[in-house]
């Protein structure tokens, strides 16, 4: 594991975000270090996905600030966050179903052909297809035939491709919104292993899941959101299944 220094890799400070009259996030502070997996948990509507979309540049926060490696950043688009090496797996929305696996893995990062053809925008499709399988294999995901369209894959395979793409491209920050959705029990465990490897490469990983055993298994620290607020931020060792559930639902608040 790379050094978990005190230096914060990526941070949200006092972030609020509302959609119309719905306050999705209220004055949220969130810290992520290199080489750390932070679990982000909460009930439906707690604001987990909203926080991910703020961190990944999809939505600008209404107030508060984002700080990457000590520098305050304002993302005008996900493109800028990507360029700053913040990679995101969005819940159920990350892939273009009509495109091939190779095209999806390289979407937005197409390899162009050398020379004049490349200048004209011609893509090196074979090279991308081959590299896509290689990249997916690198992070432990085996899929045959990268020319298949994503629509032809099963839910689990799609999720595997989406995770593989995010992990393969991630350089600093990796945001994973429900990565173990649609996966069978064994596949989910394999994904957790992929996440651990990503952490060991020194990435800061945010892991969102409803499956609390997964969260307890893989995370170093857990942040609990309820109705848009952070209600608990503590090392995983301070939680067990029962206390985590209690914190999420608010039944433990009094104690």
């Amino acid at each position, binding site marked *: 594991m790379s050094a978990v220094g005190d230096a914060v890799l990526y941070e949200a400070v006092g972030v609020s975000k509302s959609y119309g009259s719905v306050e999705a996030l209220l004055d949220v502070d969130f810290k992520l270090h290199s080489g750390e997996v932070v679990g982000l948990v909460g009930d439906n509507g707690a604001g987990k996905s909203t926080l991910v979309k703020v961190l990944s540049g999809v939505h600008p926060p209404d107030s508060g600030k984002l700080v990457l490696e000590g520098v305050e950043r304002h993302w005008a688009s996900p493109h800028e966050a990507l360029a700053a090496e913040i990679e995101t797996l969005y819940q159920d929305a990350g892939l*273009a179903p009509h495109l091939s696996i190779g095209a999806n893995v390289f979407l*937005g*990062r197409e390899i162009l052909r050398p020379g004049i053809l490349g200048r*004209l925008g011609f893509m090196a499709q074979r090279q991308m297809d081959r590299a896509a399988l290689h990249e997916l294999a690198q992070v432990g*995901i085996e899929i*045959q035939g990268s020319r298949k369209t994503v*629509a032809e894959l099963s839910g*689990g395979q799609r999720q595997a491709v989406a995770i593989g793409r995010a992990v393969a491209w991630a350089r600093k920050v990796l945001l994973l919104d429900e990565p173990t959705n649609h996966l069978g029990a064994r*596949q989910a465990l394999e994904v957790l292993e992929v996440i651990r490897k990503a952490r060991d490469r020194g990435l800061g990983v945010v892991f969102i899941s409803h499956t609390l055993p997964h969260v307890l298994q893989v995370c170093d620290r857990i942040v609990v959101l309820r109705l848009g607020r952070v209600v608990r931020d503590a090392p995983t060792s301070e939680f067990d299944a029962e206390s985590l559930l209690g914190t999420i639902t608010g039944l433990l608040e009094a104690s």
Partner: protein
Amino acid sequence: MVTSTGAVAPAGRRPGGAVRSMVRGLVGNQQFMLLIALAALVAYFTARAPVFLSNGELANILTDFCSLILLGIGETYVIASGGIDLSVGSATSLSGVVGAFAMRSLLGSHQGEALVLFVGTLVCVSIGLAIGLTNAALINWARLVPFVATLAMLGGAAGLAIVISNGEPIGLDPRAISLTTAKLGPFSYPSLVVIAIVAACWLSLHLTRYGRYTFAIGSNEFAARAAGIDVRRHVTSVYALSGALAGLAGMFVYMRLGSGAPTAGLNDELQAIAAVVIGGASLYGGVARMSGTVLGTLIITTVTSGLIISNVQANWDQVAVALLIAAAAAMQALRPARRA
């Protein structure tokens, strides 16, 4: 290892099954079926009226094809990106009328033919481009859905064409008619331009990053944006392209008629959309084929010309096109599910 369930190693082909699987492949191949349909239509119309295969008639079909395919190409990009452009017919009319005004004044001052053609083309394409950019502005900034934005533009551009032309064809002038025979070798000027544009757009749609982004946006706009694609800019360029090509079609129609008629492109958007859908595109976006659009356009121009030659009352061709759309859409619905 996340070994995806179901993705087994490619199974060895059983010997003897090759022919059967080839036949099944061909029947399942929409392009191939379109070719068969086209051949059948040509055979049918030739049997009804042998003059159908004469040089003069083929030239007519080719002329119709040249303007319709331009609309179809633009529409292919738009539909692949998950949108629709209903304004292309009106854009053809309006740009033809404005272009005709420009060319009439140039002819009035006795300019050379090449200059007149050049300026006319430039004016027509600019008008079409302006219409396309307006569509994009309505979609991207006024947040209208493409159907509504381009429907508004269909009405607006068609109305404007009638207002500024007073409802009359502009520039019916013997010298304008002489422009229509402009040729380079055996090829008419429009057919050369069309060949070049079809080839370029074919490559661009299927082999370049531009085409890839077009499909990605039509397939899953959120995924495209999340992957860092500037969706607004891309959508703008797609409608601009569609508009500019419709403007060029306006010039071609002018060259065919020798005048800019305010109703020249009436209902052409329906034929263009039909051609794209017949060619295998999905109106939900993410799926389209340039080869399919070319074949679809050939089928539509064959049917409309064939009906005229067979002395069927002219208005039946709209009914025929409607039937073609229904058939193509049904074919899509019946094809094995490959949906998300």
